[in-house]
């Protein structure tokens, strides 16, 4: 399927398609009044919030919006087919950096075309208002300076822990473990393991830690935090590869001693974790934490609202522990872009939607939405008094309770970025399959890393043509 898609992709987007205003007038937001656009998105919190209340956008622009939300794999399939068809059934596309942006960036419009065009409403705060690592990771590909997507959501893994239990046992743990157990970036993964083991022996929770170690993408995410903190990586210049992306990442580095050490530690960590870990993805871990099955876990920070509704005031957040090299917190955010095949008034209207959906005002509304949530990708929003107040309990916007932790996690030295390469999906499968075999005791950490590296090298060697 990918071959067919890629083959027809370039021809279909060779020429820019100038938007033709459907209506004229003084208000740039009303330029395309009467147009109708289709938006395709993963089932994310911001999309749920926007879909629940499209009236503000329609009133502002006169543009009708149809939102199709799907789970990610179905979305990738539809986007690939849509681009291959040479037309744009979907004008606005949820562009996952690894499954849409990297393989199909040529099928996305360069948003500078709209940002630099003074006839459009200005992008509030400019590109500089987006969290820089997010703008690069979710919006760009290669060195050309193109902006293919604007950061739309920003799930990032942080240390989620039962603050009530840590408060209850802090002195005892400190005395018995010989260090202050309070979660934070100064804690090490070795200490995290010791804390988890300590909790295994108390009555309040069955297990200290839980992990998303199912044979699934979640296993790669969970492991990557440890890999990077131990100084390992998937390819040379991993952080730059995660920010800029490439179609030729070079040789896989998982055979290196740091990666093997990380895998060995991860195996030992999961061995003392809740046994359910081997069948959990991120949702399983979130459910286990809320059900009182575990005292702590690395997980996506956007679970904060759910945690707060079930365990109000009991869950706190910190950046993940550090390894010998650094603390690494995997980023899972995504941007929204415009299909290069979108044309005429729909193309212009699509930009109005992207501009509006990523604006600070809309992001604040999403945070307040009963069906939404998500996390703002705009720096300015975190400075609003309303948002600042929500970072502390009682919080009207519970996802903001993670703001300090994720703010630290998004710093350049702490962010964890997967390789932004078109063939990452296959590499991911190779990695989590080998890791899963390791966790099942079918192979050693060294064998798992060697086999994963061999498979990844073969996948990368096939190359990618778009």
């Amino acid at each position, binding site marked *: 399927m990918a071959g067919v898609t890629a083959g027809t992709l370039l021809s279909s987007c060779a020429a820019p398609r100038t938007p033709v205003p459907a209506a004229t007038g003084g208000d740039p937001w009303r330029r395309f009044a009467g147009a109708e656009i289709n938006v395709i998105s993963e089932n994310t919190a911001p999309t749920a919030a926007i879909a629940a209340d499209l009236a503000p956008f329609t009133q502002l622009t006169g543009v009708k919006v*149809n939102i199709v939300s799907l789970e990610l794999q179905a979305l990738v399939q539809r986007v690939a*087919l849509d681009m291959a068809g040479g037309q744009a059934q979907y004008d606005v596309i949820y562009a996952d950096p690894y499954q849409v942006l990297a393989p199909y960036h040529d099928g996305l419009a360069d948003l500078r075309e709209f940002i630099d065009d003074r006839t459009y409403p200005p992008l509030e705060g400019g590109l500089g208002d987006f969290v820089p690592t997010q703008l690069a990771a979710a919006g760009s590909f290669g060195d050309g300076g193109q902006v293919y997507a604007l950061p739309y959501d920003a799930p990032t893994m942080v240390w989620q822990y039962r603050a009530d239990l840590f408060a209850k046992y802090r002195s005892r743990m400190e005395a018995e473990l010989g260090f202050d157990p309070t979660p934070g970036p100064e804690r090490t993964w070795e200490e995290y393991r010791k804390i988890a083991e300590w909790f295994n022996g108390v009555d309040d929770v069955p297990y200290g830690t839980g992990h998303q170690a199912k044979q699934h993408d979640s296993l790669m995410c969970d492991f990557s935090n440890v890999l990077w903190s131990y100084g390992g990586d998937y390819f040379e210049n991993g952080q730059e590869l995660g920010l800029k992306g490439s179609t030729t990442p070079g040789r896989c580095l998982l055979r290196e001693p740091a990666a093997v050490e990380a895998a060995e530690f991860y195996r030992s960590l999961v061995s003392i974790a809740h046994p359910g870990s081997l069948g959990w993805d991120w949702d399983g871990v979130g459910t286990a934490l809320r059900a009182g099955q575990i005292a702590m876990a690395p997980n996506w920070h956007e*679970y904060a609202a759910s945690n707060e509704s079930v365990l109000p005031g009991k869950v706190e957040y910190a950046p993940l522990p550090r390894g010998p090299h650094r603390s690494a917190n995997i980023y899972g955010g995504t941007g929204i872009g415009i299909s290069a095949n979108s044309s005429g008034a729909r193309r212009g209207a699509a930009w109005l939607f992207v501009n509006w959906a990523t604006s600070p005002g809309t992001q604040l509304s999403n945070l307040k939405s009963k*069906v939404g949530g998500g996390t703002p990708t705009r720096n300015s929003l975190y400075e609003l008094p309303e948002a600042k107040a929500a970072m502390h309990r009682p919080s009207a916007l519970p996802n903001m309770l993670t703001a300090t932790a994720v703010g630290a996690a998004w710093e350049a030295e702490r962010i964890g970025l997967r390789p932004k390469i078109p063939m990452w999906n296959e590499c991911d499968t190779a990695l989590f399959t080998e890791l899963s075999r390791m966790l099942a005791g079918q192979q050693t950490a060294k064998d798992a890393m060697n086999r994963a590296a061999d498979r990844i090298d073969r996948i990368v060697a096939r190359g990618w043509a778009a």
Partner: protein
Amino acid sequence: MKSPLALRVLGTAALAAVVLWTVVPLIWMLMGSFKSTAQVTSPDPVFFFLPTLENYVRLFTGANNLSPYLLHSVVAAVGSSVIATVLGTLGGYGLSRTKMKGKASLSFWFISTRMAPIAAVVLPLFLMFRLAGLVDTLPGLILAYLSFNLPFAVWIMSAFFDGVPPSLEESARVAGCTPWQAFWHVALPLSKAGLVTTAVLCLVFAWNDYAFATIISGPNSQTLPIAATQLVTQTGVDWGQLTAIGTIVVLPMILAGIAVRRWLVTGMTLGAVTGE
């Protein structure tokens, strides 16, 4: 001859186990749809609770109102089933009554088109539909379901007509009937069980389809199975609404099955009785 008591008890126990295996998940789903979010996600199973319509209300009033999905499902499933059954009946009758060389191979070719996995045909189908402007349209979805249902309907109806002795139609012809009248007044009524079986099976396939809908449908033609997947989100699964959608999807098929069970059972077992 009466079977020994132990054997009958064993048979009943085995049947009871199968019924439990089949029915318990459905009952649990039905119960879940009437539970609150806290009850449906409770780590301890909740058996006794005050039923609430909260999940159904949210389905039909929330961000993704279910009504259009339901309408699309009904139109696409009923439309494709009716067309497949009508054309399948005519095709199956023709295949059954025509004497020609390679008839068995032709019959096998019909059904062999059902053997290809949907994944193998969905891309070329999408490209053809795109060219024809059928993507994201209900006629497109009906046509996609027909591509799978029609060969099946032709094949199964042909088998049913094979079970109707041609001598009955010949008698009707002798009595003055036209070929069409012989078909309409004699062969067709005798194949009622086959008709019902074919229609129900085509309906079930189209109603439950996810593979075609995920590729061919769009904002204007999405069906119930697509709506169900929308409840699996990045930050969790809305189990309450999911069980409510599950109930909405399953219930009509169960009711249809119960309504036509007499013909369905006859139809399902006809081949076995006649040795087809």
